[in-house]
């Protein structure tokens, strides 16, 4: 089973929402474990997971399906959303704010009591089975006017907020994911936590748990820890020269 370390009541909330056929919205910063949580919970509930990474060219028909030419005839191919409905799976739309507006229009009827998808090309209305569930995620920390979820959309979902795990949990996660020892994990968590304080200095986000795991993996694979940290934490967090220097100095003072 995929590794996931609960950080709060998220499992209970998700399971209860799933029982009541309610859609879920996951909010949280980059790399804090939103997608991992969905994978874990899908396995736990024994449901198939279909993940769609949203981007600006993703249209409604990309989700629902389309006709394709096959030999001399045409065949209908379900999109990931239709497939999820037919199979009673969890459809996970990752970073949903990146998608075009019509994508949200398509999923609206699936997020209320109708729980149905109308396929106009086929003239068919598919009713979602009880096991079907729609999960969307986004990162509210982007602060961009172009990357916001409308209030009317947000209110259709049960919301679960994620943040970086507590120190002890993060140490445990890093050790489990990378195989590093506790001391290294603690140092990395210390670095991660400190870098998150840089948000007051204009950095949009601090080091994610994911990037800390990368650093740990590089170290376990043989790179010195300071080099592993500089290649992951310092390089990936900012292009601002001054902030990079401050982060570099942080790595030195924390690791010694």
């Amino acid at each position, binding site marked *: 089973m995929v590794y996931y370390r609960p950080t709060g009541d998220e499992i209970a909330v998700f399971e209860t929402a799933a029982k009541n056929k309610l859609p879920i919205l996951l909010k949280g910063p980059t790399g804090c474990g939103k997608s991992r949580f969905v994978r874990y919970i899908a396995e736990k509930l024994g449901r198939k997971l279909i993940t769609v990474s949203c981007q600006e060219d993703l*249209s409604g028909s990309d989700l629902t399906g*389309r*006709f*394709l*030419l096959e030999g001399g*005839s*045409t065949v209908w191919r379900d999109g990931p959303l239709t497939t999820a409905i037919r199979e009673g799976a969890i459809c996970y739309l990752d970073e949903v704010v990146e998608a075009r507006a019509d994508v949200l229009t398509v999923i609206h009827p699936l997020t209320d009591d109708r729980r149905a998808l109308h396929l106009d*090309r086929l003239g068919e209305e598919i009713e979602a089975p009880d096991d079907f569930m729609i999960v969307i995620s986004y990162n*509210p*920390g982007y*602060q*961009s*006017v*172009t990357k916001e979820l409308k209030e009317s959309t947000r209110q259709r979902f049960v919301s679960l907020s994620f943040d970086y795990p507590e120190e002890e949990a993060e140490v445990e996660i890093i050790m489990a994911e990378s195989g590093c020892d506790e001391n290294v994990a603690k140092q990395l968590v210390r670095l991660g*936590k*400190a*870098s998150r*304080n*840089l948000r*007051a*200095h*204009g950095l*949009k986000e601090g080091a994610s748990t994911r990037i800390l795991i990368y650093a740990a993996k590089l170290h376990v694979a043989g790179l010195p820890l300071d080099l592993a940290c500089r290649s992951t934490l310092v390089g990936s967090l900012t292009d601002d020269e*001054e*902030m990079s*220097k*401050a*982060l570099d*100095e*942080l790595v*030195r*003072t*924390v*690791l*010694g």
Partner: protein
Amino acid sequence: MAAPTLPKDLDPYEDGVEIDVDEIPDKLTDQEAEEAILASYLFSPPVRQLVPGVDNGTPLSQVQRRVSAWLSMVTGRHLASGYSDPSSTDGENLFLPPAVAAPADEMADERLYRIMGIIQIGLVELGFLSNKGLLSDIHKDWVLRSTYHILAARAVLNHYRRELPGLASDIEAVSKMSKAGALRVNITPVPKEGLPEAFLPLYRDLTSHESWGEAGFSAEKARQAVEAVDRETSLPALKLLISGQAVALREHFLSLRLGPPPLPWYLGIVRPEWFLAKMGYDGDADEDWKKGQLPLRQLIQARAKLGLGKRRAATIEGPGLRSRLKSRFKKKLESPTGGASLSNQPAYGAARDSAQAKAKKERRPQFSQGLDHSIFTVDSATKPDEDGHIHDEWDFRLRNYRLAATRVLSPEAQGGSLDNYKQIVQTHKAEINKIRRQFEALRIEERWRGGERDGPELDLPRVVRALTDIHAGYQPDDTLFRRFIRDPQDVTVMTLVDLSGSTHGRILSEEQRAVVLFAEGLHRLSVPHAFYGFNGTAPTSCTLHRLKGFAEPYDDAVYKRLGNLRATGGTRLGAHIREAHRMLASRSESRRILILLSDGKPEARGDYRGEYGIEDSAMAVKEGAKHGVKTHCVSLDFTADAPTYLTKIFGKGNFLVLERAESLALRLPELFRGLIC
């Protein structure tokens, strides 16, 4: 004698709190003298002494961003920055020297700034400056203050050495720097030669000197104290230990007829009076500390007796303390609920209706009938007056709007010399080019867009899909072309610049620079934009000064206005935001952004201050959000509570507090880029 009390509404950091001892009558009582003198010491901005001379080491400004970022990261505290020599803190601001002594070595000097910063933050963070009784004691006694400071700073350094293994080498390097270890009592330099040997153990690992030999018997107590501090790792135990050891050492030094042990310069200076002022100001502190240091009081009394009570305590202009206090007390007595308070007016029912009718007659404020309020749909909420627009104001105490409470005028701003604008552009050519290059990428959406009804090329995947539909017997989609689009961004931005009196000086000049640089960047970007300055004190004379309107092209008249900002008045922020939202709401663009540059809390004459101003501004921001206007703030408020009230007004993540004013010009375009990317 009862301890003197100072008025609660006296702002300890208010600009221009001026004390003229000359104004105090000769027959002053002890209490009055204390009050006047202490006020000048305690309720005045922190002392800022620039390091004299031209051959300084690395100036703080050169490394400040890195140092502040590093300190925030390792301590988790974001203190606002200021200047003081030696370094100090009041718990909300970190004061570092504007420059260190020569020679300049950027790496070593940056390390020195970091250590100075972490000592000051550590003293606060670890709770060494949180005990009122102790602060009161060290405030009155320099020997105790020095002893306590040295031991507490040692404990702070030990703590961070353990927490941050890499810091040990930095501390060691700093302790060996002669410029860092120069000794001082308060701000007076003390030579290292001939220092009493009883003091010497206190400086172990902090600083050293070749003339210092082995410490003899008289140094035994100091050695034991230092060793005890080094041994102890539990923080609560350390606090008790240090308090006790400091008192014991004080007795010991006094028995040896010694004064306060001087401090290595980089340990900075502890100013208990600043913390006590804050505690006293907050309400329940023991007032005894205000009696001040005994020698100071004796000096004042002696001078008064000799007829020499003319000690000038601070720069003096305008009315003195006594007249200020008198007028404030008088005002308070006349209006115990705070002047124009509405708290005794009926909020609902028939009583309210009649009050409103009466108020209408008397042109006094009225209240909204309910909370379902919208500035753009309720006629009475915003209507053009002969000279501007009328807006309501949110009164959080009544949970209701004061109808038609403010009027916002939006005249053309006063211009000035064109040279000012040109000079800023000339001086900042490199920065402007950088901003323009960054904005070029935002200028237009430049890409092939499929799914068009017409265009120079076929959108092949859609053609295939259409053919498939035809083949399957369905009506095909007719959006089969693609075209290269160069659409302007569907966004509009209005920048509101705080031109209230508080910005006068450094903030205004930074705002001026930022406005010109931002305008130069936006000029090249095909995004409709406007610049307005805001100020105003009275509810009916809030003003949005038009620096550049949406429809105005860039010409000399606009340059003259943009290049000549003037500051005066207060910040009735809610009204200004509502008027800006009204202007933006009428725009056709789908994304409307309001960027606010401000330097402090929304405060204007009357009761528009504190929670009232904050709550009204927050409500104005919410009203705008309902109508698709996104409001962001760039704050130049360097006080520690800025993030708290900015979160209340703009919401989490919708503001940016700059660590120094100089960075505004470049951070503003960055913020804008972040908002629309």
